[in-house]
């Protein structure tokens, strides 16, 4: 064990200074399921996304063109089921994962 331990004296550290420096070292693959982005004009108001959402984070509201979903990120479990069920590809999950906010209204995606 001593050999392995002493070899580490020369090796570069494995941990990164994430929040303050070295943000680019965070491995973020293309298909990462992060914050929801919703394209309002593609949506036809079929409310399938609200039916399939396991943590009912997707609420249906009315607006002039019919039903439109509203996504509450503080309830969402980022499973990506809405992205899959949406027939019009209006919902996509971006790779943004830093979702801390001071008040809950910031966590709503219209």
């Amino acid at each position, binding site marked *: 064990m001593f050999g392995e331990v002493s070899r580490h004296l020369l090796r570069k550290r494995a941990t990164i200074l994430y929040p303050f420096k070295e943000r680019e070292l965070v491995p973020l693959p293309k298909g*990462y399921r992060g914050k929801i982005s919703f394209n309002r004009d593609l949506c036809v108001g079929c409310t399938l996304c609200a039916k399939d959402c396991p943590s009912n984070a997707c609420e249906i509201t009315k607006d002039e063109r019919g039903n439109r979903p509203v996504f509450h990120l503080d309830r969402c479990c*980022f499973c*990506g*089921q809405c992205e899959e069920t949406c027939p019009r590809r209006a919902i996509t999950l971006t790779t943004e994962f830093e979702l801390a906010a001071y008040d809950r209204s910031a966590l709503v995606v219209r």
Partner: protein
Amino acid sequence: MAFSTFEVPVGPQHPALKEPENFTFTVDGEHVVGVKLRIGYNHRGIEKAAESRTYIQNLYLMERICGICSVAHTTTYAQNVEYALGKEIPRRAEYYRVIIYELNRIHSHLLWLGVAGHEIGFDTLFMYVWRDRERVMDILEMLTGNRVTYAINTIGGVRRDITPEMADKVRKSMDLVEQRVTYYKKAAAAEPTLLTRVKGVGILRTEDARRLCAVGPTTRASGVKFDVRAEDPYAAYDEVPFNLVSYDLCDVLSRILVRVDETLESARIVKYCLDHMPSGPVRVKLPRTVPPGESVSRTEAPRGEVIHYLRANGTDKPERYKVRSPTLGNLPSVCEMLTSKGDYVVRIADIPIALASIDPCFSCTDRAAHFVDPSRGKEWSWTFEQIRKYARKD
């Protein structure tokens, strides 16, 4: 049985296992003479919740039964619904499920190896193992979009496909994992202080393992050759050649060896699947409602056999969904291990490592049960009431 014993609660919030469980050990000096186990702190009523959700939504409920082996429960659940529908899923999807399952087994076993090192004060091993585990977590994040809750299984196949360059990255990581794990097996297993802490500790004899229906590495470390992948092959396991790892030393060391060998075995399986993965679609559209009927589905999670039972009534919600996670099957065995009997003596210092040796995941178990001290044995001069009366005294 002198009355000089007192009870040491290894409580719900305990540094040994960051899991919500309570063991009350009756201790005579340094020797543990009894264990009373109380779980249920994290019981979330998943089975009742499953009855009020659609089959699609249940996928994500099943995934959150266990934080470490989440793919085990979703694969078992997806298969269960596919059995009930009587539909076959594309071969490529089955191979992809095996790949993700084995990657999850590697990450779960490495996580356990690190925690086992931490339990016996070997923090360097903990740091190294968890650093190497990051390779596997990054691969899983690349393949499925998230480090832990993969959401890769769906009813009728898998939701993403693997591209050739992803496959190369996976192969490279598997070589690294194999190289590192063989090092750990050679160096760590030869480390005298580690050996003294795990050899001859937490004995579970073969007939006890059979009698108490132990599952997974715990029972395979006691010489019982029981592995769902070999006996009851599901997904693509009927075509994937792998040898069943089992040791018969019956102690914590043999559980370490079983898990380390299984990690190497899993790396080989992943590489085999990557090479022999047939092309074609990865999922097939299945109806949202399941005709009335029942079905049982089993898989081999990193901790042992997971069994699900589904009773469908023709609607899009299951009528009853029973889940039994592996740790529940191993709990009677851990109580057996932790009770000193005759010349086999258990000390307080052995509790964390014996407890950790079955790799308990109480978040899964809490969906189910707690077990009372096996004081039904004759070597006990106390009845249960005495313990309770005694416990209330101090």
